[in-house]
Every structure is written in C-alpha cells, then in structure tokens.
C-alpha cells in the first residue's frame, strides 16, 4: 500500500519544474518528508522485527517485477540516509537564500530536483538487488550529486571539478559493471547480487572482490581512489556536501558490505587488504587534512580519514570471521557500521556549521577568519561539538564506535594467532595515531576559525545565522550526545545487523556492562564539571575580576592579531614531520644582508596531494595528450578520405589472404 505513495512521491518530483520559485523549496521539503516517513517505516519494520528481510515488488523492469528488498543492513542505511537528508533539507532553506535572486526558476528547480533524486536514488541503491537496476540507480545517484555539485556554476573552477567528479564516478560504475558481468559470465547465476553467491562459492573471491572494491572505493574515497573528494566537497553548497560526505560516500561502504555478505571462504586476505587500505586512508587522510587552509577541503580529507576508520572496523571484522575469532568479528563489524552512523552525524554537523560561516563571511580560507565565536556563538558551539565528536573524544558518539573497535582488538589479542596479533598491533597503533592527529587538526581548525581575534575584516560584518539554519544542528547534536551517553540502546539493532556477517553474535552481549560503565562515567564526568564550575563561580563572586590584555611578552604596541598564531604556523611542526607525504611548498623571499629598510615581504604555503598528482593527474593528462596527438585524420581533403577506404580494403584483403581473420 505505502509503496503506492512512494511511487507517487517519486513522480511528483517532476512538478517542481512548473512551480514558481518561492514554493519550490516547500514542495521539495514536503516530498522529502513523505519519502522519509514511508521508507523509515519500512526500515524500522525490518530492523526491529526478526524476519530476515522485507521484500515487495516495486515496478515492472524488462517485463518482470523488480523487487525491493530491505534486510537489516539496508534498513540501517535507510535510517542513516533519511536522517541526514532531513537535516540537509532543513538546512538548505537558509543556505540558499543568497542564491534566490541570482538563480532563475529552472536552475533552482533543478537543484531541488537533484537533491530529491539524490535522496531517492540513495534509498533505492540500498534496496535494489537486481544488478542492472542497481547500476542504473547507482549512476543516477552520481548524476544527481554531480548536478548538485555544479550548483555554483558561475565559477569556472566548479565546472572543472564537477566534470572530474562525473568522470571518476563513471569509472567507478564501470568497475562495478565489469565485476557483475564477470561474475555472471563465469558462474551463470542470476544477474543480481544474489547471483554473486554462486560465483563466490566456486571461485577464489579475491579478484572479483578487488574489482568491486575499486568500484565502490572510488565512491567511498579510500586512498588512493579519493582524488575527487577533496575537490567536490568544497565546490558543492554546504547542505549538499553535508549529505554527500555524510551518507553518499557511505554508499560505497554499503556496496562493499553487501558484497562481503556473499563471501564465505578465503576471507583472510580480503580482510587484510581492506585493513591495510583503510589504515593508509585513515592516517594519510588526516595528515593531509592538517595542512589544508580551506575548511571544507579539510573536512573532506577528514571524511577520507573516517572512511578509513570504518574500513578498519570492517577489515578487522572480516579477519575475525576468517580466523574464527567471534569477538573480533562482531565488535569489528559493529564498530565499523556504528561509525557509519556517527560519521554521518558529526560530519554533516561540521559541514553545516562551516557552511554557515562561509555564508556569513564569504570565505572558506580559515587564515582570514578568527574570533567568530563572539559573532556566531551557537554556530561555534555546534562546530566544537562536532569537532569533539569527530576526534573520538568521550562522552560523544565518535568515541563509542572507536571504542567498539578497540574493545574488539584488545579482547581478541590473547586468543588470536601470531600474525593476527601483529596485524592488531598495527591496527590499534594506527587508530590511536589517527585519533591523535584528528585532535591536532580540530584544535587547529576550531581555534583558528572561532577563537582569538579576527584576521581579516571579513569577520567584521559576520552575524549569527537565522534559527532556521541552527535548528537542524540541534537535531544532530541531540543524536550525537544521545549516542555518546546511552550507547547500549544501539546494541540490539547492531547485533541484528552484524548477524548478517557472522552467525555468533554473543560477544556483543559481553560489551553491554562496559557500555553501561561508559555511560556512568560520562554522567559522573558531567557532574564533576558542574561541581567545579559552581565552585569556580562561587569563588569568583567574592573576588574582583579585572580585564587586561593578553600577555605579549610585555610588547603591547600592535594589535594582537598581528602576532597571533596562524593555521600555517600551527600545522608547521607537523608538516616538518611528514613533509614527504603532504609535500608543502613554501614561497617567500629571504631578507638580504644589505636590506636596511626591508620592503613588504609575503609568505605563502601550498600543499598538494601526492597521490592525486602522481597516480591520477599525470597519467590521465599524458594519455589525453597522446590521443590528441593522434587526432589528425580529419584533414578535410577528399583524397585522404578516400585513401582510408583504399587502405582499409587492402588491409582486409591481406589479412584474409594470410588467414589472420
């Protein structure tokens, strides 16, 4: 029954193009909410019932009815998608106000339309099993997100980035397609995900999984497949980047998980592969994030890092299954999957707040910001919340998922074999390192944007955004804190999801007391803070509170902004450590000896992504220029045109004579 409404909602999206500007947003929101409510009902039904999966026919597809199937995994992703898209849609209203007059009716309609279709296609991606339908909807997702990315089409750069994005997405889709076809040809199962099972039973899964991994990994942004991500996220409007980084890249994770559900042997090397790639992505992602000056680019690199964390969880889970260590399997998968949810929460929160900053100051370069907490207190606090959460600090949700993974690793250390132990050693040291670097990065970005004194006059006219743009942050913040304080709520659903990958899910019951311990400790923590704060207030009430300038070594001449720390200088000592990874280029002139009255000097640093440079750009450009050199056939001379045919005939003649064809 409700499927009818779902279909109707999908059809009604086309109405957008005929509506006048001012109604379009509300129409879009209405459709979003109706789709969300319908699909969430399905998800909840599937997730909290003990049936394996819901399944009902959706449309006629090549004569046969195309079923949509919602098992636990799909249900989980449905909920994540819906929540993030809801907040995104709410946030969009405020964010798009400045564009309302710049853009004409059709452009706006196209934007809302694409946003709706991004939502719909993501939902269907996790619900389709038929391979062809999956590919189609997968590409639809790429197209709609592409149209969203190029929203600010006035900028030449945006279009360039959009095209880069489109091409890379297409390459990913091609890999997935090849994988499906190969599985189909080699095994002759049905042409769908379920058909993969037939292949994997009889063949060594690694090769096919590798192809799938590349295909989905491009979407997910694993290093070195990530090079679209740091460009597309900054280019897109913030509600879009929030949704893209929050959930769209998770579709890659979904794909990988979905494929994993059909593999039941030779899992170890697959797990190891995922783990290694994920560790690299995590560490390099965050290292590259530290040296960025563009806040949204920085956040984009953090998405890569978090994808890495998710991957670590999944990889460990797979290894656990392979080595038959239930605790590692269960907690690994649980941690990874939970981190999908968590990352979608705090990453979208960070993007929304960063977007608000951008809307008020018209710059994404953090070197020009500073002291915004006085202008935009609410935004600042929500950004801080997001920063704490993404750094995996208690008592917020990021900590919980990382804790799952840690717990899995430490609990299984003793029972695991030698090689697994060494793998675990690297994993948890890597995870710790990632956490530390994340803290380093977010202390930097938060304090440079919001604290200290303004670094340019862009900050001066900034004001707090309207409540409409704050409200979604409240929703997300609530979720973040809820998960942080009451993680045990998630145990049951997580267990049911994990049961898809590993049969024995008892270990997750062991962790419940631990989670209770965490919540209690968090509670105590808050209480302690409260007590100390009250004491402090009580003490200061009796004392005189004076104001005095910041201590500047006694030098009080110039304004503090001058000798204030910048993002570059903050990142510098890390940059020195990892200069080869992030290759920072500095541009400046030395002072000469004879320079008595030095002229104005400037100092610039640029960092570039070595993977993008050497793995993607250089070969691509080389290939393209080669092709271009070859394109001289269209000379415009009749003689040449005829010559081709003559040569063709002669060549064929010879080949035939020589029996080569």
């Amino acid at each position, binding site marked *: 029954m409700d499927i009818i409404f779902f279909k109707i909602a999908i059809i009604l999206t086309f109405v957008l193009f005929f509506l006048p500007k001012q109604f379009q947003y509300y129409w879009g929101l209405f459709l979003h909410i109706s789709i969300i409510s319908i699909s969430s009902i399905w998800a909840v039904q599937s997730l909290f019932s003990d049936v394996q999966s819901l399944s009902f026919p959706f449309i006629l597809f090549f004569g046969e009815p195309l079923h949509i199937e919602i098992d636990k995994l799909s249900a989980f992703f449905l909920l994540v998608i819906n929540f993030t898209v809801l907040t995104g849609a709410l946030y969009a209203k405020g964010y798009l106000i400045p564009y309302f007059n710049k853009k004409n009716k059709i452009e706006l309609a196209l934007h809302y339309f694409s946003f709706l279709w991004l939502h719909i296609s993501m939902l269907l991606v996790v619900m389709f099993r038929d391979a062809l339908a999956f590919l189609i909807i997968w590409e639809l997702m790429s197209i709609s997100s592409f149209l969203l990315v190029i929203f600010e089409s006035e900028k030449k750069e945006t279009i360039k980035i959009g095209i880069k994005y489109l091409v890379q997405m297409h390459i990913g889709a091609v890999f997935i397609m090849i994988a499906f076809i190969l599985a189909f040809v080699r095994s002759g199962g049905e042409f769908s995900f379920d058909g993969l099972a037939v292949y994997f039973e009889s063949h060594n899964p690694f090769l096919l999984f590798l192809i799938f991994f590349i295909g989905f990994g491009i979407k997910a942004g694993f290093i070195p497949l990530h090079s679209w991500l740091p460009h597309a996220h900054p280019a897109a409007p913030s509600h879009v980047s929030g949704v893209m980084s929050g959930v769209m890249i998770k579709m890659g994770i979904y794909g990988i998980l979905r494929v994993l559900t059909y593999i039941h042997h030779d899992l170890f090397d697959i797990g190891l592969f995922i783990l290694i790639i994920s560790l690299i992505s995590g560490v390099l992602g965050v290292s590259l994030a530290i040296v960025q000056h563009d806040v949204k680019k920085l956040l984009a690199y953090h998405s890569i890092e978090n994808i890495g964390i998710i991957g670590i969880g999944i990889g460990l889970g797979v290894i656990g299954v392979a080595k038959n260590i239930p605790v590692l399997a269960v907690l690994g998968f649980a941690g990874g999957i939970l981190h999908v949810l968590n990352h979608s929460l705090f990453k979208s929160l960070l993007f929304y707040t960063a977007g608000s900053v951008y809307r008020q100051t018209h710059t994404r370069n953090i070197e020009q910001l500073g002291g915004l907490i006085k202008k935009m207190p609410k935004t600042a606090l929500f950004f801080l919340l997001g920063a704490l959460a993404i750094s995996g600090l208690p008592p917020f949700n990021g900590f919980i998922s990382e804790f799952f993974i840690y717990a899995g690793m430490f609990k299984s250390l003793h029972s695991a074999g030698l090689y697994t132990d060494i793998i675990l050693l690297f994993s948890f040291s890597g995870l710790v390192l990632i956490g530390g670097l994340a803290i380093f990065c977010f202390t930097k970005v938060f304090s440079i944007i919001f604290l200290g004194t303004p670094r340019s006059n862009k900050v001066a006219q900034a004001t707090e955004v309207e409540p409409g743009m704050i409200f979604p942050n409240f929703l997300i913040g609530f979720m973040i804190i809820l998960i942080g304080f009451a993680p045990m709520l998630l145990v049951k659903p997580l267990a049911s999801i994990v049961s898809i990958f590993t049969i024995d899910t008892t270990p997750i019951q062991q962790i419940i007391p631990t989670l209770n311990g965490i919540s209690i400790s968090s509670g105590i923590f808050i209480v302690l803070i409260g007590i100390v704060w009250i004491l402090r207030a009580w003490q200061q009430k009796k004392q005189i509170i004076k104001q005095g300038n910041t201590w500047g070594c006694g030098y009080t001449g110039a304004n503090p902004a001058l000798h204030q720390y910048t993002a570059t200088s903050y990142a510098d000592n890390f940059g020195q450590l990892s200069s080869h990874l992030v290759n920072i280029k500095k541009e400046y002139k030395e002072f000469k000896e004879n320079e008595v009255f030095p002229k104005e000097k400037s100092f610039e640093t640029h960092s570039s992504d070595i993977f993008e440079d050497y793995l993607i750009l250089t070969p691509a450009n080389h290939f393209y220029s080669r092709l271009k050199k070859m394109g001289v056939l269209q000379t415009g001379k009749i003689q040449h*045109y005829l010559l081709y045919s003559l040569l*063709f005939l002669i060549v064929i003649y010879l080949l035939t004579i020589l029996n080569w064809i």
Partner: protein
Amino acid sequence: MLFIYTITSIVISLSILFAKKNTLTKVLSVVFIIAQISLSFIAFLRIGEVDSLYFKFDALGILLGFVLSILSVATFYHSTLYLKRHEFSRRQEAIYYSSLVMLIASMMNAYFAENVALLWVCIEATTLFITILIFHERTKEALEATWKYLFISSVGVAIAFIGILFLSMAANSTGITNLSYENLLSVANQMNTNWLKVAFILILAGYSVKLSLFPLYAAAIDAKTIAPSPINALMSTALVNVAFVAIFRTFIIISQTSTMAWAQNILIITGVVSIFIATIQLTRIQRLKRMYAFSSMKHVGVIAIGLAVGGLGYYAAILHLIFHSFVKASIYYQVGAIRQFFKTGWIKDTGNYFKLNPVGGLALILCEISVLSIPPSGLFVSEFLTFKAIIMSGHLYIAIFLFLLLTVIIYVFSKNTYHLLFAEAPVDIDYDKIKTVPYESASQFILLFLVIYLGISPPQFFTDLIYAATAILN
C-alpha cells in the same frame, strides 16, 4: 501500398515545389506526414506481407519506419522554426520542403525494399536529396560540405554497387537471377564464400559513407557541420538506419554461411576502429555539431560491435540503433535552438546557455546525459547489453579498451557541453533577434522520456518486433 505512398509523396513534393502559397505548403506537408504515419501503421498491421512486388513489411523495417515517422513529425516542426529564423526566399523554402519530403519517402522505401538492387537505388536517391538539403544555406562552406559529401558518397555507392555485383555473381552461380533477399537467403549456403567475402566487404565499405562508420565516415562529418540542424537530425539518425538496414540484410545472408566468423571479425575491426577514431578526433573538435557527428560515429561503432559479437548483441544493436535515433535527433533539434543565440558553431564563442534559455538548457543537459549513455537513458541499457555480449563472447580486453575510450568521450563531451551551458556568455548576442519559446524543447523532452521509458520497461510488441527482426540470426 508503398507504390501508392511513393507516388503520393512525389506528387506532394512536386506540388510543394511549384506551390505559390505558404499555407498550401503547410497543408501538403501535413498530408504527407499523415500518409507517412498511416503507412507505418499499415505496415505494422500487415507485418510479413510482400508489398508492391519489390517490398516487404518485415519487423526491422516496421521499427525503423515508426522511428522515421516520429522523427519526421518533429523534423517538419523544427524545419518551420529553422526557416522562420533565417530569411530565405520562397523558392529556397519550397525546394527545402519538397526535397525533405522526397528524402523521407526514399528512406521509407529503403526500409522496406526487399531487393538488393532496389535498396541500392533508394540509397542513391537519398544521396541526391540530402545533397540538396545540405546545400540549402548556399554558403561557401555549404558548397564545400556538399561537394565532399556528394563525391565521397557517390564513390561509396559505386563501391557498394561493385559489392552488389559480386553478390549477384555469387547468386548467379547458384542459378538465381532475381536478387530479392528471400532468394539470396534460400541459396546462401551454396554460394561461393570468396565472392561473398568480397561482396560483404565492399558493401560494408560502400555504405559506411551513410552509416558514418569507418572507413568512409569523414565526408558525412564535414557535411553535418554545415547542414541545417533539422536535416542533421535526419541525416545522423534515419539515414544511418537506412545504411544499417542495407548492411544488416547482407549480414543475415552471410550469417547462413561459413563466412559468418570472418564477417563478424570485420565488423569488430570496423567498430573498434570507428570508436577509436571518433575518440581521438573528439579530443580536437572545436565545433558543436562536429562533436555530435563524431558521437554518432561512436554509437554506430557500438552497434557494429553488437552485431558482430552476436547472441544478446543483435538485440542490443537494434535497440541501440533506435534509441540513438531518438536521442541524436533531439540533440540536433536543440542545437537548432542554440544556433540562434550564438553567431557561429564554434564552441569557444558560446556560453551561459542555461541562463539564456533555461528550458533549452535543461533539455540539453538531459540530451547530454542520454547521449553519453549514462542512466536513466535507454542508451545505457543497450550499451550495457552490448558490453555484456562482448564479454560473454570472450572479448574482455576489447570491452576494457572501449571503456577507456568511452571515459575519454564522456570527459570531452562534458567539457564542451558545460562550457556551452555555464561559461560566461559572448558579448555579441542581439537578444531582440532571438525568438525562442519554452515549448520548442517539448519535442526533445518527449523523445528523451520515450527513450528512458523504452529502456527501463519496453512494451511487449516492441521487444517482440526486435526479436522478430533478429530471429533468423539465432
């Protein structure tokens, strides 16, 4: 039936040629369109019957006939727009319409022609009329384009004629004098394979000029750069289909013999080479229409490969042919609207089309997505099936090579299309001269949604027709 149709169309075209009033021209065109559509319906109802001696209503013909009818409606509409935008003398307009009618009529004949020689004659006729239409704008460039096209296609047709000679020779050796496909098919396996090989290769090479397939693709590309956009729309769709019919029918004959494998290899070679050449040329194109011309070349290459690998490929090839017709036609209609904003066809002189003409821009985006065979376009489905067939037939490396090329094509297309859509507009647009209305783009939306619909859930009769067309092959 076709005899009557042909006579009517000749009469109509002549009377348009000498008509004094525009209204009469309009009325006559409407009459012709009605005749056209009714013919395709009659053909559908009388499927499989032989008609006026040399013709036969077979599935492929019917499908392409329907495509042509749909396109001819749109083409007439856009021709009126095109002629409105430029000031031409009444005489020129009359010539335009009458030769358009004759072009459509001769193509329709070609679809149903059941005799090798007759088909050849029809194709020769299309050359004549399309030449007149290409020359319509009477500029230096038009003259050049026309000359090249005429000359090359005459040579091509001549080569094809030699091929037909060999075919007839092969037939004669089995005692057949009437060159109807029926007969040829019946004696196919007795024919001398060497003769068949030569015949096939020559027919392929000859008709490739119409199919805009390697080797004789080049002249058509230059012609499409100049021809009026509605004519482009027919030239790179219906005319391609004509040549496809010719080659397909020959291929069917071959398929009954031991030469099959050889012919398939030839087709694969031509297909891959065509796609490769299209790609390398696309990296250099600077005019909008050339880009689309080369993209047709790429699509025809895919079709050829689909035909070559067989199995699922046959179905995919015909599906691809039909979808490509709709998509490419709608693109050229849109190009007609674009041309009035920008003085020249050079991409660098265009820009910001999406702001200048939002609805058209939307249509163009949809066109671009569809022609790049990205979902939801039906072309994705057909291309996907083709690749499936390629890989199933064991040519994985060809598939990968093609994927590489297609990626490049996507890059080039996006680069140029989005330059046209979003780059800052050239200064010299005189807005008062532009008469564009949103519902001009309606035809494109209809065609493209038709492609999407047929791609996602094709109706029964449609698939049945395609299967019927390819039935003899497997």
